[in-house]
């Protein structure tokens, strides 16, 4: 809450014309955003591209941000999530796959399901700690929207209200996504945590 309030003050100053304050927001969220993107995509190049794209959009659109509609943090993660899906769609087109395939109406298979599952190369397997590697594999195995929901809640600590803004779902749906995702992870990691 305190962070949200101070974000709001920074944003107000920026919107009044003091663009130097943008650096404060960047300082606060750059590492968190990169941590989220890397775990969501498990692809350094993709994470870096989306990271840059997100901040360029923040700089460009900060005057249009309305704090009444949600926190700055939710806004940034929303932009990043949109950029991830845009990139995934572009990749699909580039690879000549079926364009804009109809997406199921089911809760768990919406926009973010275009995001491919993380791929874990042999270097990653060797370098990561066993439980960390198992977690990466377990995350790769759950639907992308659940993966995103679980990471935003349990890695980034977003509130359910913020999560709903990022995912574009009602709060109740966001809760269901987190719950289902964690249950699947718990099952898949049973041998490591029992």
């Amino acid at each position: 809450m305190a962070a949200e309030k101070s974000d709001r003050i920074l944003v107000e100053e920026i919107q009044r014309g003091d663009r130097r304050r943008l650096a404060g927001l960047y300082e606060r969220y750059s590492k968190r955003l990169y941590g989220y993107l890397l775990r969501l995509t498990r692809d350094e190049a993709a994470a870096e591209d989306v990271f840059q794209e997100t901040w360029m959009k923040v700089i460009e659109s900060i005057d249009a941000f309305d704090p009444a509609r949600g926190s700055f943090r939710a806004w940034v993660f929303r932009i990043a999530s949109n950029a991830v899906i845009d990139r995934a769609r572009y990749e699909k087109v580039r690879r000549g796959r079926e364009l804009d395939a109809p997406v199921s109406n089911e809760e768990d298979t919406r926009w973010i399901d275009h995001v491919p599952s993380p791929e874990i190369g042999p270097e990653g397997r060797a370098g990561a700690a066993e439980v960390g590697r198992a977690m990466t594999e377990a995350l790769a195995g759950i639907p992308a929207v659940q993966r995103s929901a679980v990471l935003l809640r349990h890695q980034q600590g977003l509130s359910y209200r913020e999560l709903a803004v990022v995912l574009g779902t009602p709060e109740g749906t966001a809760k269901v996504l987190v719950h289902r995702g964690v249950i699947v992870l718990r099952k898949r990691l049973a041998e490591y945590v029992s």
Partner: protein
Amino acid sequence: MRDPSCQRALESLCLGLPDAAREHLEVCVLCREEAEGLGRVLDELAEGVELRVPQRAEAPVLNALRAAAGPCFAIKPLPAFVLGALGLGSFVTLVSFILAQTPVADAAPLAAVLLVGTYLSICAVVSLPLLLRSPARKAPTLGESRP
């Protein structure tokens, strides 16, 4: 699941709301064990919450931030405009006096006023676009359109 209260406790833990499960965990040994395992999963999930951003990804963003911040001295649009307008006024008056060949006793104060007037005029010109730019553009529709 053992009973509905166990189910609720597990749900709360999965949702990251441990306070809601605390009371139940105090009395249910099986759920406590389950919670420990779940805790390890959640701890592992929380890893990498902050990661150092590679320089190649950060550099263009930092450049854009510097460009957005503008020059190191910040011009407050309104005061600069008012001062600039005054300066412009004095400058114009002065020039008109000079053109009219009004006798001036001392040339030094005249030169100083001319200098300050020129500087403030530049302030007015620079601050006018800042002043005219409206900070409150159309609000985004979070959750619907893409900012």
